[in-house]
Structure formats: C-alpha cells, structure tokens
C-alpha cells in the first residue's frame, strides 16, 4: 500500500516538533531548578533564575525556528496544495467546501496532540511552575497559521482566471 502524501500534514508535524521542543525546554528547566538546589548546600536563587531565563530563551528560539521551518515548508508545498485547490474550483465546489476539504485532508492533529500533552502536563503538576500556556498558545498559533494559509491559497485560486494559476493555462 502506497503512502498518502499530505504536504501540510508534514508542516503540521514540523510545527508540532517545535512545540514539543518548547515543552521539553520548560520541563527540563523545571527539573534542573528542582534538582540543582538539592545538590547544593545553599539554595541559589541566582542559579534557578538563570536556568529559568535560559529555558525561556530556548522556548522562544524553538518557537521562532518552528515558524521559520514551518513557513519554509508551507512555501515549498504551495504549488502542490494550490493544484488541489484548482481541482476543487474546476469541478465546481464552492469556496467553503473546498476549504473544508483542504482542512480535512491536511490534518492539524499533531498540533492538537501537543497542545493536549501540554495541558495534561500542566494539570498533573500544578506546582511545576510550568507555563503550559506558552506551548498551548504556540500550538494554537501554528494551527491558526495553517488555516490562514489554506484560506489564502483557496482565495487566490478562486479569484483567478485560467487554470493552474496561469491565465490561459498551459501552452497549447
């Protein structure tokens, strides 16, 4: 059985990977902050603060990298996705129906898993000091970006003339 190639699912996985990095950086910061003072005779607030500072920086860096990588994959897969939209337009599907089909075909499920994992982590240990809102917010933002991107591609396709994004279509 051949694999189903869903270009935006790959984007979704890239985003999910970076949200996971954010989550991991926060978790690791928590564990370091918890464990280091146990090995030090004197609780060192400066060290803990420094760890948390580094964790936040790592989280932001992962989020930014996720955006850059995700956006790059979105651009790379643009033609492939646009061709699908063109098929929907040429066969007479309404805009809303075409967009819905795209959203259903290019699942954002991996982002939902990560957001769910972050929420569960936060609930399991409320004393963690884990800022679950950040990874959840990031996952939601990435999902929003995907939806906006698909809406943009659908709008472009439905407002143009010709086929394949070229007026007059292919030569011939």
């Amino acid at each position, binding site marked *: 059985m*051949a694999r189903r190639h869903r270009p935006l699912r790959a984007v979704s996985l890239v985003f999910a990977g970076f949200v996971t990095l954010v989550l991991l950086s926060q978790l690791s910061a928590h564990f370091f902050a918890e464990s280091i003072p146990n090995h030090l005779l004197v609780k060192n607030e400066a060290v803990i603060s420094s760890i948390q500072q580094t964790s936040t920086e790592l989280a932001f860096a992962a989020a930014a990298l996720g955006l850059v990588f995700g956006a790059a994959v979105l651009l790379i897969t643009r033609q492939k996705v646009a061709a699908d939209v063109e098929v929907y*337009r040429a066969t*007479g599907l309404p805009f809303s*129906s075409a967009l819905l089909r795209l959203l259903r*075909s290019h699942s954002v499920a991996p982002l939902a898993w990560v957001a769910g994992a972050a929420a569960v982590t936060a609930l399991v240990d409320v004393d963690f000091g884990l800022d679950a809102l950040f990874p959840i917010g990031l996952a939601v933002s990435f999902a929003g970006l995907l939806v906006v991107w698909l809406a943009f591609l659908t709008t472009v396709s439905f407002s143009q*003339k010709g*086929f394949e994004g070229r007026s*007059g*279509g292919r030569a*011939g």
Partner: protein
Amino acid sequence: MTTPATEAAIVFDSVTKAYSSKAESVKALDAVTFRVERGGIVAVVGPSGSGKTTLLNMAAALDFPTQGTVKVAGLVTSALGKEELQRFRNETVGVVFQQFFLISHMTVFQNVMIPLIPRQLSSGEKTKRILESIADVGLADKVSRLPSELSGGELQRAAVARGMVGGAPVILADEPTGNLDHKRGSEVMDILVEESRERSKTVLIATHDLRLLDRVDGIVYLEDGKITKVEGRRVQTDGA
C-alpha cells in the same frame, strides 16, 4: 441545467482572448467562431501554443473572453454569477486535464467523488454513481488505489471517470492521450467516443495527436489563436 435539443452544445462567437504585459499584448485566441452540435465529438487540433488549452478553459468557464461570447449548453459563461458559475462547472461541463490532476493523497474513489460533493444526493446514490463511472473506465479493481499506484493510462482513465461522474452534458478533454502510448491512448479515446455515442454527450477534445482524428465527427484546426479550417460533421464555423 440541460441542453435544449435545438441549441448547439458549444458556441464560440468571435472570441478573442488577449494577455497584456508591459511590453506587448498577445492574443491567445483571435476572433474564434465555431459551434458544436449536441452529441458531437469534435477535436481542436493545432501545434503547441496555438490556443487549444485557452479555448478549452473558456468552454469550461475557467477563463473568459476579452471579446466575444462563449455559450455552453445555452449558457453564456461570462454572464454567469458566482453560484451559477459553480453550478455550471459542476453540472454542465466535465473536464479531463492533460496532467490528470488527481489529488495524490486520495484514492481513485475519493478523486472521482469530488464533483459529487456539492450534489444533493444520498451517499448510497453517490457511491453507486462513482462505482459505475470507475467501472466504465475499466478501473473497478483499482477503486481503493492511490494515484501513485496507477500507471499513466490508469491515471488518465481515472481522470476521465471524474470528468464523467457528474453526468455533465459536455465533456472537455485537454490532450487526453498526450501522455499515453498508442494503445492506452486508444483505450481512453474509446471511452470518450462511447460517452458521446451512447449517452449523447458533446465531447470537445484538444489534441495534437493526429491518430485520433479518424474517431471524431469534426475537427477545428487552430493556429496562432485563429481557426484556419473546420471540417467534418457536427461542427460549423459560420453563423455561430
């Protein structure tokens, strides 16, 4: 949305399509006039760049004339509103693209289903129609296959099934045999001819494959966007 018996299925009346850039204006079609009778199978022949695809895009209401009118099944495409245009593309014409344009992550069944998505039919009726269409093109055993699992001929046949499943009175096929060897191309042509003969569909084919011409009722010769000759039955160039 049906074709009145007295009306030609496809009418191009002085259709010009010009593309303008900063440097120049190019006419992809130049005062093209012809009409195809209902139930006819007509080929538009010409070298690459002669305007065949532009002509088909016009007939499919995917593009519109700069001047002149295109009338398909009695409907002037440039006069259609947004919803009428969607209904036209969905119900009046079935399009078969040269490059197949099957959606890669969907099975043959799912690809053929696309034109039926907006239809108010029960899922049982949709399934029946899809399976019939797929069987008509000889892919009954490939219903669950992905496009990547099909040969070139099978891909084209799946694309033909998608073009026919909606029961549109007009089928537009852009180089339907362009990527196929003679045997496979002939099989695809058989399907289109059968559709025309047995179901009274009007079929307009853009092609540069001269081997197909003995299978069609009429031929429109196109060069540099202009009709140079029209021959055969069921197609006329005067009085469009």
